[in-house]
């Protein structure tokens, strides 16, 4: 099979390592798949693209899956996408069915993962073949669409979300505009350091990892209230059988489908996939009143949805070059590091890489399942590693990564610390980090396509409305997502007020 020749033994080994580290990081509350990928990104600098893909995909799959461990055992979602896993997973642990719950979650995860992988495999090439004819006008509008969707999921304030995204775009524009080689907005005194603007990687890790560190420090690095968990108790009740999953096949497929679909929408994060699948499972269930009391049904829904998310989020990334969430945003950084631009041409011009990604996903899912299913008892211990061990390690890894990314530039370390402080301050003043980040990543592309479009029209802005049916269609999508966001925002405010009363 020529397909299998794409992956080298090294890439498979790295995939294995990635899944392992991903599970460990996902299992530690507060560490996310995003952070795992960000920390390991500098390592890919020394690797071939295909090998780094193995590592990164492994980290992605492992990181998302590892989140179920603390969700089930401690009632703390290890990653946002395992939020609803806590609803039924933790009650099962309390009933002495912890191990069974973990295994149900793992099995649901792999089914969700394979389902979304299939959708990715067939749908992404189709989407990119449509997008290949897009001119800069359509490309610009796609970016605008991505930004509006981000805003619509923003917590609390819709305008605040848009503001954060636009602010991110503005910061990304600092430096040189490649078209005419002129610099702009560089603070005086930093003309040399900021010629090409802030580097993506230190900004990313700073916002996520260092920001998180400062917030934990503010709260005093308190250990989470862990209780002793005995996976051995209640042997008979605690036994896992595949029949439990088979009984849930409709639920699994529905949840995986929802997860994949939600993953495709730019900016709609993992928690949304988990929540939607959970509530749908409840709506369709014959015994909805049992949800939240330790019902495998809810657990299955949440876990197959959040692994379904992975394939979904890769669809807009690989076919349009638009990151669906902060994790895929970092993956874009990985491609850029290797000098590969992700966009409609990606699949056709890098067929090896494309099949490499697909196979890496298959391998990662299988490795994840084997690793977790048979050694879940050992992974369960990870949740007890104290923060004072983990966080210092993360700082050093981040500093090394930032320093190494452009081959030894000290300014990148300062960028890391600066954006670490931003990552700490932003949530407190209402700037939303995911929106800011996606704005930062898409800002320069948005500018390029905007200027290219206007060059074609001689500066006439009407070009964005008159460039054919696709542009009109995109405007409909943009308007639709804004209107949806406004209605949704209004609804959630109302329900909040009702709750308050």
């Amino acid at each position, binding site marked *: 099979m020529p397909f299998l020749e794409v992956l080298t033994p090294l890439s498979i080994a790295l995939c294995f390592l990635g899944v392992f580290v991903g599970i460990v990081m996902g299992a530690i509350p507060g560490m996310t798949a995003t952070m795992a990928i960000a920390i390991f990104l500098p390592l890919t600098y020394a690797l071939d693209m295909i090998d780094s893909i193995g590592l990164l995909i492994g980290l992605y799959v492992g990181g998302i899956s590892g989140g179920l461990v603390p969700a089930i055992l401690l009632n703390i979602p290890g990653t946002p996408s395992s939020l609803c896993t806590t609803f039924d997973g933790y009650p099962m642990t309390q009933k002495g069915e912890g191990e069974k719950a973990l295994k149900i979650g793992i099995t649901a995860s792999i089914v969700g993962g394979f389902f979304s992988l299939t959708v990715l495999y067939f749908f992404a090439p189709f989407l990119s073949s449509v997008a290949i004819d897009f001119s800069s006008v359509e490309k610009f509008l796609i970016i605008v669409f991505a930004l509006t969707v981000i805003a619509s999921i923003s917590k609390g304030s819709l305008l605040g979300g848009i*503001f954060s995204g636009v602010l991110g775009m503005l910061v990304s524009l600092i430096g040189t505009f490649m078209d005419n080689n002129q610099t702009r907005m560089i603070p005086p005194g930093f003309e040399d350091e900021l010629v090409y603007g802030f580097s993506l990687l230190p900004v990313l890790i700073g916002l996520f990892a260092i920001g998180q560190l400062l917030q934990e420090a503010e709260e005093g690095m308190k250990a989470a209230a862990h209780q002793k968990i005995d996976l051995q108790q209640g042997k008979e009740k605690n036994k896992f059988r595949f029949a439990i999953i088979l009984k849930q096949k409709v639920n699994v497929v529905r949840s995986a489908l929802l997860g994949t679909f939600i993953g495709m929408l730019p900016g709609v994060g993992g928690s949304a996939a988990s929540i939607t699948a959970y509530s749908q499972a409840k709506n369709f269930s014959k015994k909805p009143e049992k949800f939240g009391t330790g019902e495998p049904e809810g657990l299955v829904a949440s876990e197959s949805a959040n692994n379904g998310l992975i394939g979904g989020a890769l669809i807009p990334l690989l076919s349009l070059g638009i990151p669906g969430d902060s994790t895929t945003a970092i993956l874009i950084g990985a491609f850029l590091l290797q000098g590969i631009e992700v966009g409609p041409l990606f699949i056709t011009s890098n067929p090896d890489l494309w099949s490499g990604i697909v196979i890496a996903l298959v391998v990662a899912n299988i490795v994840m399942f084997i690793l977790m299913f048979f050694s879940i008892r050992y992974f369960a211990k990870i949740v007890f590693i104290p923060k004072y061990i983990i966080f210092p390690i993360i700082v050093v890894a981040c500093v090394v990564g930032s320093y190494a990314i452009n081959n030894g530039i000290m300014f990148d370390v300062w960028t890391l610390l600066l954006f670490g402080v931003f990552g700490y301050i932003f949530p407190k003043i209402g700037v939303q980090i995911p929106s800011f980040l996606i704005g930062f990543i898409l800002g320069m592309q948005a500018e390029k396509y905007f200027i290219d479009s206007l060059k074609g029209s001689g500066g006439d802005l009407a070009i964005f409305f008159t460039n054919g049916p696709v542009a009109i269609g995109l405007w409909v999508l943009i308007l639709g997502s804004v209107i949806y966001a406004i209605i949704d925002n209004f609804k959630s405010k109302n329900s909040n007020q009702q709750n308050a009363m």
Partner: protein
Amino acid sequence: MEDFFTIDMTYSNYHLIFPKIIIGILIAIGAVLLITNLMKRWKSGTLTHFRFKFFSDNYDKVKFYGTILLLIMYAVTMTWIGFVLSSILFMILITLLYIGNIRKKSIVISITNSLATTIVIWYVFGQLFDITLP
């Protein structure tokens, strides 16, 4: 700008067109945010009642400012004494800061954590993958 829907495209000014638009949008959204916020305050009669709390209640001053100080010191010392020494020092201090006492056990933990991490990172990044370290 000739009229509202046409933008003057001069080659030497290409780099300023988009930033200007973005700043314009930011100011516009910022203004709307400010006005809606003020209106809300006015309605609830708390217009002059500013109570913005940046830090959470009883935040850990020692650990918070200690972290910031150590981070800055780490970055500065790295250029002086190199990656390995500065990392070992930084990790011992920050682990001790987070444990919060200087008992014998804590010191042993912090030194072990520091040495193990630094050596592994130095070996994997610096030697195995030949990545430039400070």
